[in-house]
């Protein structure tokens, strides 16, 4: 099992959710996060002059998938989240030791 953490543009949440569903993954955790990468910040205006906002709002999607499903999940996310501009985000893949379904107590791959 692997956990996929995808940090994407806010407006790409819906396309990514749909493409994950199309690949059989309905369960996921979504949070609003702030961050920065090569896009850097953006300038905003004060009463006069401006200031820089360094961290921009992004969406983080966490989904745990079977080892075999990792490549196509990554493809699904990148294809649906990409605009080609800086600021499209990043995906991290992290090993998962175990998973438990709280309702039934099921373990391992059956729990995801």
């Amino acid at each position, binding site marked *: 099992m692997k956990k996929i953490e995808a940090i994407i543009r806010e407006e790409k949440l819906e396309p990514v959710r749909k493409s994950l569903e199309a690949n059989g993954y309905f369960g996921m955790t979504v949070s609003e996060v702030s961050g920065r990468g090569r896009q850097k910040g953006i300038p905003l*205006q*004060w*009463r006069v002059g*401006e200031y820089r*906002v360094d961290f921009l709002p992004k969406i983080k999607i966490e989904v745990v998938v079977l080892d075999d499903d990792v490549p196509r999940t990554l493809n699904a996310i990148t294809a649906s989240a990409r605009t080609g501009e800086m600021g499209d985000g990043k995906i991290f893949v992290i090993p998962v030791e175990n998973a438990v379904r709280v309702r039934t107590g099921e373990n391992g791959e059956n729990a995801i």
Partner: protein
Amino acid sequence: MPVNPGDTAWILISSALVMLMTPGVALFYGGMVRRKNVLSTMMMSFAALGLVGLLWVLYGYSLSFGTDIGGIIGRLDYLGLRQVGQEPSPIYASTVPHLAFMIFQAMFAIITVALITGAVVERIRFGALLLFSALWLTLVYCPVAHWVWGDGGWLAKLGALDFAGGTVVHICAGISALALALVLGPRRGFCHGEPMEPNNVPMVMLGAGLLWFGWFGFNAGSALTSNGLAASAFVATNTSAAAAAFTWMVLSWMYRRPTLLGTATGAVAGLVAITPAAGFVSPLMGIPIGMGAAIICYYCMLLRMKLRIDESLDVWAVHGMGGAWGALATGIFASAAVNAAGADGLLMGNVLQLGKQAIGVMAVGAFAFAATWVLGKLVDVTVGLRVGSMEETVGLDISQHGERAYGGLLR
């Protein structure tokens, strides 16, 4: 003179309108600070309603409007509202109950104290601010109000014009704000260019809207009668606010984009500048006065930032400099045809009036700066003006008031 019902209704309504400006200031300032200091910033303004509302009826009114002592201050003959009753005062606003005039003036004192707090947000101790406010009301506001509006006040005798408080309220608050900010020092991180991002710009606009609304009571109410002069002041006020809001919007647009924050600030600058002039100029003079206010305050704000002075919410730039422009503009655009109690200004060929206005600006500005500096230092060495560095980092909402603006587990 007997009580006039129309005038009385108008002054009571105007008093209520001016009262609403202080919560307006709270919203206006509260939206511009970081989210950890929203409540403390709003509290500083709202607390003035409690503190000054008390001190004014106890002795403040008497110091400002009591029988003159040497042109400087009023006697304590109105202490605890003694002799201030349902009959008109023989001297002030002789067609409305003395109590109505007194409470109208109370609202001016309250908002003036609230205005200063914009300079010291996010770092001043609440208790120290209350102590400073009480001292400042007594030793700065009351004398200045007497000089300008008191019967026998020295600036009144000189003939300096201030229709609704450009000098008494705005120059006094704006210059004092600068002095207090200099005594207090900058917020942590200010000098390293840490962004101090406004937490809620919609709230700033709501505050500016309430200020604009209340300002009709402030300026048109200062006619102290319900007549043509009140209408003239009303129209001049709206025209100046409109001209300044529009001008600031254009300035912001020339820089990059037309911001709501800038447009709301412009409206306030225009309202400040027309305050001393409202009942002495023809309504259309609101246009040059408002445009001038936007341009002057905009560049004063840039200058303040360039000098790296943390007068945080630009009370000096908007109220101090906007008020100074308004006072001088009164000396330029005034016309005795609008108000027989006024005078002709520079454009009507009376150079002398501009000189009188300049004396008023300089005298009040210098006194307010010096007195505030001394009072600020005094409070600092006795009880301490500033919060500790940890309290400042955590934010004043929690460290000074034990509450936070936005609750809930997830924020």
